[in-house]
């Protein structure tokens, strides 16, 4: 994996932590800009200079979720949330608003780097030369990997990059069950950690955005004990 000088924005009010993180990330090949309040962070994020934003939800003044919401209202820039450990609501709300992934504080900096790399890898719009991006169509859903856009019954559907990747995997395996493990590996680019519900959250968000299919209920079916499946219209799913 080629290391590039990806420019990362960190929004966190803990000044000392930011300087430590800066040291660490620089050694890993990233360049980093740290700001310490929400307003500034918002400004910077929207300048489009950054490959990724690392955002602390526990900001003084304008709170982290608000910043995230405002960023998401105009930009698809990848966002990694730093949440409070044990506060499930942080994670749930954050993913709801459109964060790509989360990392509870305190964190192992190795983990931070891994997740940053994973998020950046996913967000790359271009594909390797040997992959031909053809439009995937199943039922009333069309997914174009080249433009990273999705349409449902002709109407465009707005998905975050994680949601897009998730849908892509499911569509490629339409009619077959994809295990949660595999989804976490492929979509969140990390090892499947038990007791982690974030993949389920992403699935339910995609479900909601797609709405009901013409046939019956959700496009994405839950297969208890195994994983998820994108339903093929009027065809029996193969196990």
């Amino acid at each position, binding site marked *: 994996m080629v290391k590039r000088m990806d420019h990362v924005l960190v929004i966190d009010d803990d000044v000392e*932590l930011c300087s430590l993180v800066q040291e660490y990330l620089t050694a890993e090949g990233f360049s980093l800009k740290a700001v310490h309040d929400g307003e500034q962070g918002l400004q910077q994020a929207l300048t489009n200079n950054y490959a990724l934003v690392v955002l602390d939800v526990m900001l003084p003044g304008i709170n982290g979720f608000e910043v995230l919401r405002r960023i998401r209202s105009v930009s698809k820039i990848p966002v990694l949330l730093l949440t409070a450990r044990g506060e499930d609501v942080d994670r749930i709300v954050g993913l709801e608003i459109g964060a790509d992934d989360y990392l509870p504080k*305190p964190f192992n900096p190795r983990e931070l780097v891994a997740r940053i790399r994973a998020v950046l890898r996913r967000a790359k719009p271009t594909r390797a030369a040997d992959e031909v991006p053809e439009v995937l169509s199943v039922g009333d859903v069309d997914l174009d990997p080249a433009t990273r856009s999705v349409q449902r019954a002709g109407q465009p559907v707005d998905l975050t990059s994680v949601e897009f990747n998730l849908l892509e995997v499911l569509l490629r395996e339409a009619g077959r069950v994809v295990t949660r493990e595999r989804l976490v590996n492929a979509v969140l680019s990390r090892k499947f950690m038990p007791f982690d519900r974030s993949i389920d959250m992403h699935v339910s968000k995609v479900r909601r955005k797609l709405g009901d299919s013409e046939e019956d209920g959700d496009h994405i079916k839950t297969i208890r004990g195994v994983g998820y499946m994108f339903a093929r219209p009027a065809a029996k799913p193969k196990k």
Partner: protein
Amino acid sequence: MKSLFLKIFLSFWAALALSLVLAILVTIALQPPRRGIASQGLQTLAETVNAYQSGGEHAAHDYLEALGHTQHVRAFVFDPSGHELGGRMVPPWIEDVRRGVPPRDTSLHHRTWMDSLLPDRIMREALTLDGKRYTLILELPPGPGVFFGRHDLPLLGISIAIISSGLICYLLAWSMASPVTRLRRAAQSLAAGDLSARAGAPASGRHDELTELMRDFDRMADRIERLVESQSRLLKDVSHELRSPLARLSVALGLARQRATPEIESSLNRIELEADRLNQLIQRLLTISRLESGTDGLHKSQISLRELVEEVARDAEYENPGRRCRVTASSDPASSDPEDEFLVEADPELLRSAVENVIRNATRYTSEGTTVEVRLERNLESHSKQEPIGSSGDASQDGEIIIRVLDCGPGVPDEALPKIFEPFYRLDDARNRLTGGAGLGLSIADRAIRLHNGQLRASNRKEGGLQVEIRIPEGRPPVQGFALPAHS
């Protein structure tokens, strides 16, 4: 509550009614004997005539008036010409009597309403003095009949007495009992977790002890609400404060590793391990404090326990270090049908955390290569109130769902069974690090389940190992907010 109201009402009413009835009876008993007067009819007549002859009309008048006051009789004396000696107005019906028209019966039409209430016992006497015939008509005092009625409304007087006293006593009892009811209701709401519950005493107005009590209660509730709010704020601030240095420590550790030589590696590993433990401990402490103070509140929704248990079992099997053991989930065919989802109304996060903690505890202690079984059961009978060894919380009365977690570990000595749900309790005092944890997982599970009116029970299996039952009642909704510790 009814009993206080009834006590006040009935006792006051009985007292009042009784005293009224007694007063009536005493009054009657004090009536002058009627026979006495009757026998003195002739004498009365004679004396009246004497008084008349010696003193004229005035004297006769005075005599008869005096007689009326002392004996409570109305007397009229007539001379042969029909002239009343006392010179007084004679009611027409008396005239009738004098002339010899017998009173028809007790209810004469001419009589006024007042008169008609009184039984007429009329006495008539005649006397001849000096050749003149004098007539005495005497109306005797009313007898007890007025109260024990001959009229269309029997017991009229008594009924009026009883009804009016009843009304007064009802109002009195209500005015005393209703503040007590309000106070009780407010106290119950407060204890159940509604910190805004108040007795609602009027700001001004009544100043009796009961209203003062209500005001005192409201002041107390205010203080409690403020205390709990400040505590939860403190909790939030403290948790944030604790995280910041730990976060910096972790990153600094990472930096150290980047530059580390192999000799330092093991020390850094050690530091990381302790930092992790610190982290876990803080997290669990915060969870317990949150559960205890109820600041989380319960967000109920319908959950499939089967789905929850299956997910947790799968994750636990995946997670357990080195895949030492298997974890299986099943439902009991004897008490439920195969499609049974075991639905309950509960807080999903709390329930998940409880089940996770119990199952992870089992995977931690079970022997290598064994299987941890998780079984779902239904129990439809009500339970005895007796608490078996090693249980916490109150036994349920309705049907309940039991999640049994069975491991093949060393089990727990009988005397320690009730203690394993206490925070920080660990079997071996040496805090055996191989098994990990700080002794908080089961107490977190315990509090979460008690918030749902359920309980945890632990017992040793015949074949060795520990059995932990998570009992969740159906039917009754979970308690909101507070769950004060039930065991000492």
